[in-house]
């Protein structure tokens, strides 16, 4: 009887652990994607600079054109938290200053994730972030969070 309880406890415990592990994996699962022909190696600071208009090339001669998802979407909020590392309001203010003072071109926003993936798959200069579950061989992952 005792053994049975132990086994039951063990099974419950392992299920909990595996669920925790799985949810951790799900949480960390956004991919920053580029064209499959783009061999750039990027860290999170590089990605931040590209999306804030401070870095305009993957490497000399290879232009980088970021595509954002709209403010308020889960994807944008998580991107700001993981990569931009500023409060969302500050990010909005930063982009407003950039737009209205001629300091740079702000990334275009696209809400259709399938279209984002298609654009990245077809353009050498594109860079975007999408749910890792949607990643396939048409794009290359340069960073995950």
């Amino acid at each position, binding site marked *: 009887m005792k053994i049975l309880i132990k086994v039951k406890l063990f099974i419950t415990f392992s299920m909990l652990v595996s669920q925790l592990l799985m949810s951790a994996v799900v949480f960390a699962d956004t991919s920053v994607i580029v064209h499959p022909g783009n061999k750039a190696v990027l860290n999170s*600071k590089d990605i931040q*600079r590209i999306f804030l208009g*401070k*870095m*305009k*090339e993957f490497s000399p001669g290879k*232009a980088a054109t970021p595509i954002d998802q709209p*403010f*308020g979407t889960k994807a944008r909020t998580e991107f700001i938290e993981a990569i931009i*590392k*500023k*409060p969302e*309001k*500050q990010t*909005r*203010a930063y982009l*407003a*200053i950039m*737009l*209205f*003072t*001629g*300091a*740079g*071109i702000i990334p275009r926003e696209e809400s259709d994730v399938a279209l984002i993936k298609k654009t990245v798959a077809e353009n050498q200069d594109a860079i975007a972030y999408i749910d890792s579950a949607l990643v396939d061989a048409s794009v290359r992952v340069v960073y995950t969070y």
Partner: protein
Amino acid sequence: MKRFFFIIVLLSLFLLSRGVHAGSVRLSGFGSIVGGQTLSDEDLPGGGKSVFQVDPTLTGFPDAAYDDTKSFRPDSNFALQIDSDLGDDLSITAQLTARGGNNFEIDAEWLYASYALTPQFTATFGRQRLPLYMYSNYLNLGYAYHWIRPPVEVYGEGVSTYEGLSGLYKGFVGDWDYELMAYIGAIHNKTAVIGDITLDLNLGLNVTFSNDWLKLRASYNDAEAWVNGAPIMDKDNPQDIIFYSLGFSVDRMNYFVISEITILEADKYAQFSLPPSFVTIGFRESWMVSMGMRFNTITPHITFSGRDTTLTGHSVPFLDDLVQGSETVNVGLRWDFHDQAAFKVDYTSAKDKSDKTLIALNGKTLQADVIAFGIDFVF
């Protein structure tokens, strides 16, 4: 005439962008709708009362200052921006602005062509904001800062735009990003309160270093000024004016601290409008320290600022070495009630700290308490 000119510009932008395949036109804008009034003022020897001037580029315009009657004009403005990407790294931008202090007449704060010579270096040609100080480039973009208006003692310069050429280099080293900017050009204002003024910008420089939370900025500007028909500073006798500034900001998730110090040095015959009269000035310093906390959507903040202007006696000898000055405390609240709009309320208390001789002569012209509230938005 001006309106007609802008309609032509607008039409050309749209037509151009349609003609070029790579092109795209983007329409955006921002604005502020703010009301306020003075809660206390000072009686002046001439019989009038002190007012709170918020936009010194509009000195003499009654709508650009708060008095003891409610007004929705001094801090209100609206701007519409048209960006046209012509492809091949060339873009054209027009920002049409209407300021309440100027009876909402349409003007262009920015009207320029920009060309990315390299990914790091952009040359811009046309009408641009004069980037003397940290907030110069977005003085009217209330959505981007916590106050209703940046401290007038530091940012209330008599000129805010120039026409000319600027070069901007953006780069980075390690965790730091930097920007180097150089510009030359001129400012013409036929209807300035001082007269038909020209400022010939010999050279302007500014440099900014920033990382995720710290920003450091320094700027320098050397200009020659003259006023058509002014006896002591006409075109044959231009006066040299030099500006410097140093600024920093610390911006963490929950709080921020910002400060800037500016210095102006002028040749001995450089005349300035210092209401209620014109004076020659030698030296001017201004400063501000501002801090705030962020509690979710609420940002309370406090700011101290001041300005001291040392006069020279070249037009009125007994004014030599007298100081006209003020110190101001501003407390305010920003409430981000909407993603693209913020509600603000600011209480500003300005004290006239001028030399007694000046106060005896003019009264406490710089002293007033003001309350203002309103919303800023972007679209």
